[in-house]
């Protein structure tokens, strides 16, 4: 299965190499620094596109796998692979980094800024591609360091507090992940005599109920903080608020997905039974996040904090989709990771443009911007509507899939989550009215329209927002086979009696009761069959 060309290894090493090059450039050569940063990230984007082209849709398994044993005695290996779940996250990452560079202004000439950003990109891509749990952990941890320096070095007023809080909080949570990994590997080794960190082999570990639950909680602790999931989110408003523009884009757009990706890739793959057991709990946290994030966002007076809380709500949707365990919900969750990355990044970029001109994030200081800058207002409107979930733009497809899929197995959670759809309109339209409507005062007199350069890096994001809203087919058709494979695995482990019932192969078909007739409505449901009994879903 090894392709002739090691796409994935190159994807990780290219930005890392670019970081080394930047380190070698003298810091006085500011334009060279910027050029290397931009070129490095663009080249990575090029490779990601090539990977996407090379990726063959219709298959759910890992592709382009490259395994190079490292410490054979411990079963640790440099093993990378890509499937429908990680493919578009990698693509999104490689889109957002050049955009972040372009938006960083003078910061993109600072040698250390550029180097840290490139290290961060390599670490993020590495996390998405690792099939070895230990390598994943190393990359996952590696992301913390650049972000710490990006916030503390180039952030806003309270950057020190925000950076420290972020670093310590996430580091503490990661300790659980490390312990969880080692425990899982030990159990697996005990059971089979084989010591391995390969997620594909670890997935077949037979865990007792308690073991599974404890390990799931250990893994999820790290992911819940990173995503963040309610109530582990309080670092995020501070970190997003104090980050420089590029940092906020990467934090909310890419790094948050490390958490949700971790849930899908490792929680579902490794602990299917525990996932089924704990699903109600985590679904509840997700739904609380949706509602609570929306409510708290509604009273924020600071645009960046507002987006941070809105992000909490949107991550809640993704978490709900991941734990609902149906095809539409999980595909929607994966798609929504990409969607959320794009429109949240766009919102942070637009807010940064406002800050650059007026030096404030506070809705109290801003008014009437639409008459000064109609194009900027228009782009903000499109992005806002995508975030609200208006059909025709990308946010809707993900949300709809998540909610309709969740409704099949966990009806009342879906019903409450749907209320979040109303809240999103409340806080975003309120903010828009404060900032863009009204008559500009003297303060806004000098507010200028979006420049060509700003338009240039916003254009791809807007294009993606519209494209994924109208024609998500090409993306979904590559996500779905991997999601199906994962759900089959979950079902096979969580309900081992299923094959005995003579289900068709590639089964995981849930039957939706429609009166007396049965329609095979959805593939990949775990508890769906129960949920569709008349009294279920309570």
């Amino acid at each position: 299965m090894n392709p002739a060309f090691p796409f994935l290894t190159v994807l990780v090493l290219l930005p890392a190499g670019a970081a080394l090059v930047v380190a070698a450039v003298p810091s006085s050569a500011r334009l060279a620094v910027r050029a290397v940063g931009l070129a490095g990230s663009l080249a990575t984007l090029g490779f990601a596109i090539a990977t996407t082209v090379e990726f063959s849709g219709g298959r759910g398994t890992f592709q382009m796998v490259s395994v190079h044993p490292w410490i054979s005695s411990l079963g640790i290996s440099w093993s990378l692979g890509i499937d429908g779940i990680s493919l578009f996250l990698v693509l999104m990452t490689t889109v957002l980094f050049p955009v972040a560079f372009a938006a960083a202004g003078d910061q993109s000439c600072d040698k250390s800024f550029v180097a840290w950003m490139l290290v961060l990109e390599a670490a993020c891509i590495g996390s998405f591609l690792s099939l070895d749990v230990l390598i994943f952990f190393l990359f996952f941890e590696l992301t913390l360091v650049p972000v710490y320096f990006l916030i503390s070095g180039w952030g806003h007023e309270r950057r020190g507090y925000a950076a420290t809080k972020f670093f310590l909080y996430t580091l503490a949570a990661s300790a659980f992940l490390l312990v969880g990994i080692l425990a899982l590997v030990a159990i697996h080794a005990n059971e089979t005599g084989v010591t391995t960190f390969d997620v594909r082999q670890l997935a077949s570990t037979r865990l007792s109920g308690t073991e599974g639950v404890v390990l799931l909680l250990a893994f999820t602790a790290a992911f819940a903080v990173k995503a963040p999931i309610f109530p582990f989110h309080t670092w995020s408003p501070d970190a997003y608020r104090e980050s420089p523009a590029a940092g906020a884009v990467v934090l909310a757009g890419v790094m948050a997905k490390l958490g949700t990706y971790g849930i899908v890739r490792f929680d579902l793959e490794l602990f299917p039974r525990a996932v089924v057991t704990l699903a109600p709990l985590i679904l509840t946290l997700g739904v609380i996040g949706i509602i609570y994030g929306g409510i708290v966002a509604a009273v924020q007076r600071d645009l960046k904090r507002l987006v941070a809380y809105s992000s909490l709500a949107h991550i809640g949707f993704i978490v709900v989709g991941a734990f609902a365990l149906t095809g539409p919900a999980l595909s929607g969750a994966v798609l929504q990771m990409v969607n959320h990355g794009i429109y949240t990044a766009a919102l942070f970029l637009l807010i940064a443009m406002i800050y650059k001109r007026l030096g404030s994030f506070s809705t109290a200081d801003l008014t009437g911007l639409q008459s000064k800058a109609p194009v900027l207002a228009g782009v903000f409107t499109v992005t806002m509507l995508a975030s609200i979930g208006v059909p025709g733009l990308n946010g809707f497809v993900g949300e709809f899939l998540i909610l309709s899929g969740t409704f099949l197995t966990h009806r009342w959670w879906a019903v409450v989550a749907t209320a979040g759809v109303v809240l999103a309109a409340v806080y975003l339209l309120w903010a828009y009215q404060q900032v863009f409507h009204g008559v500009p005062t003297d303060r806004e007199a000098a507010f200028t329209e979006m420049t060509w350069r700003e338009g240039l890096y916003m254009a791809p994001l807007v294009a993606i927002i519209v494209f994924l809203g109208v024609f998500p087919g090409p993306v979904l058709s590559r996500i779905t086979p991997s999601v199906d494979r994962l759900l089959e695995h979950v079902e096979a482990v969580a309900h081992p009696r299923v094959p005995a019932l003579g289900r068709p192969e590639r089964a995981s078909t849930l039957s939706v009761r429609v009166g007396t007739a049965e329609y095979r409505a959805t593939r990949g449901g775990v508890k769906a069959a129960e949920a569709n009994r008349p009294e279920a879903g309570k």
Partner: protein
Amino acid sequence: MIHAAFLIPLFPLAGFAVLAACGRRLGNPLAGWLATAMVAASFVVTVIVFAGLFESSSHHRSFTQTWWTWFSVDRLHVTASILVDPLSMTMALFVTGVSALIHLYSIGYMEHDGQFPKFFVYMNLFVFSMLILVLGGSFLMTFLGWEGVGVCSYFLISFWFDRPSAASAGKKAMIYNRIGDAGFLLAMFLIFERTGSLQYETVFARLGHVGTGSLTAIALLLFLGAVGKSAQLPLYPWLADAMEGPTPVSALIHAATMVTAGVYLMCRINPILYRAPDAAHVVAIIGGVTAFLGATIACAQRDIKKILAYSTISQLGYMFMAAGVGAYVAAVFLMLTHAFYKALLFLGAGSVIHAMDDEQDTKLMGGLRRIMPITSVTFLIAWLSIGGFPPFSGFWSKGEVLLNAYGFSPLLYALGALTAVLTAYYLGRCYMLVFSGQARWTEARRSGDGHGHGSGGEALHPHDPSWVMTAPLVVLAFCSVFAGFIDLPFHPDLVFLERWLSPVLGDRLFSHHFTASTEILFGVVDGVLAALGIAIAVSLWRTAVNRREVEPAFLQRAWYIDWSYDRLIARGSTLFAGFASAVVETRVIDGAVNGVALIARSAGGALRRAQTGYVRNYALGVMAGLVVLLAYVLSRAFS
């Protein structure tokens, strides 16, 4: 030629794209003409498709055009498709027709506006969305249009966004609509769960397997969506505020087309309502009560657009009443005729507001009959139509509704009949205040009491507007007079609309049959009711300007409903959210995090000497360790 149907929404979409890209370069008035031409082209195509459909046999009058797969996961397969059938084409016909006229009118009305091209960008996008709404082949396509019109409505209500009231009104409309949309979404989840599809044809074919409880839930959830979109109790207050938008917007979106989307949805899901009679009764009762409530409020308003807004709420109530009792033909019939006379009323009001230099208070108007003859006569026709005076169109359509309401329950009929009197009365009051009596705008100006945005001191010279504005008035007046003849009750051959729609409604048509003499009796009663309302209005308001006794405060304040929403819900939830943010978030959740940090720090005090205490150094340490590890992995792995 019926396969040209895909062009119908495509023209306004193209207009939107062109205008969005280079509307400012086209400028005023070219951008307006382009937009109008696009909608007119869409109307022409609709007529052609309509004619084609008319010629084909009644079994071939329904087909789906699929464009592409919107998204598909497992059985959740959603296509971008349109459904062409008599119902959707009837809707498309009047939507494009009325839209084209209002676009034309807007060229004159928006003449002096600085954002002229942008107005038409939104208008074309609106028409596109509205056409997707009515033509959509699945619940989700309808929802796409449903949200699209909602967003356009938001844009256009807050079109003059420098006015805080306009900005708030736009936001309010969108939020009320979103509440309804949550119902629509939940209905779709339930439909998909129960039938495995969202495509209309498939869903309706599988209804037999769905339990009555589920069907009732689906119907009520969809009705919640309709209540939000069509401004029914309890989600109606946004429509009165929506009058902040430019008057052509009020005519097109908040009278003729968008707000009727809820009624369309009820007609579209008639197979569901048929199987869920309880839900249908709720629809009928909410409709009846809203019709009455809206009419009472309209009796005491002084802002000309507010009168018309509450009148729209009331008329929409009639339509829901009809749909609820199963008289879908009557609902569509009233929707059609209402589109004509209500658009005419709004455009007439627009002419008046234009002439009065943006004054909207009817108490500051008067005596315009002679100065603005075309506006006055067309307004009069609209009044007689909406009042149900024979033989104007409203007489026939409202008569249908009332007759069917009687068949359902005499109580509902009584409510409807009372509302009919009120309808003829409040618009009579409006007409009298605006067009007859003393010209009060001269004194108002002199005493410097101009509420408008005009330059107070200058003398007003009101006159009928230019032809681009009067031509739509005349065409709509013509339709208001004669549109009733598409569904005459006298002979089975004359019920054109009923026969045309019968393939969609099938055997679910309301089957209450009355004898010819009963029908004639009801017709006479309707005429008398209308005449009664007109007579009261004329006798009370021919000369008077203020009559406190018939304008009680609780009606002027709209039964205090909006006020109590604001006090109870808006303020309450703001307080709650403030509490969540200030106490739960800051003190409890984040407080716990910082508390843990504090404990750790004090416990670690003893160790502090060994540590530098700088996170920076830890971070670098972590970094160095990780990089060395990864580099080692790589070197070993690839060696």
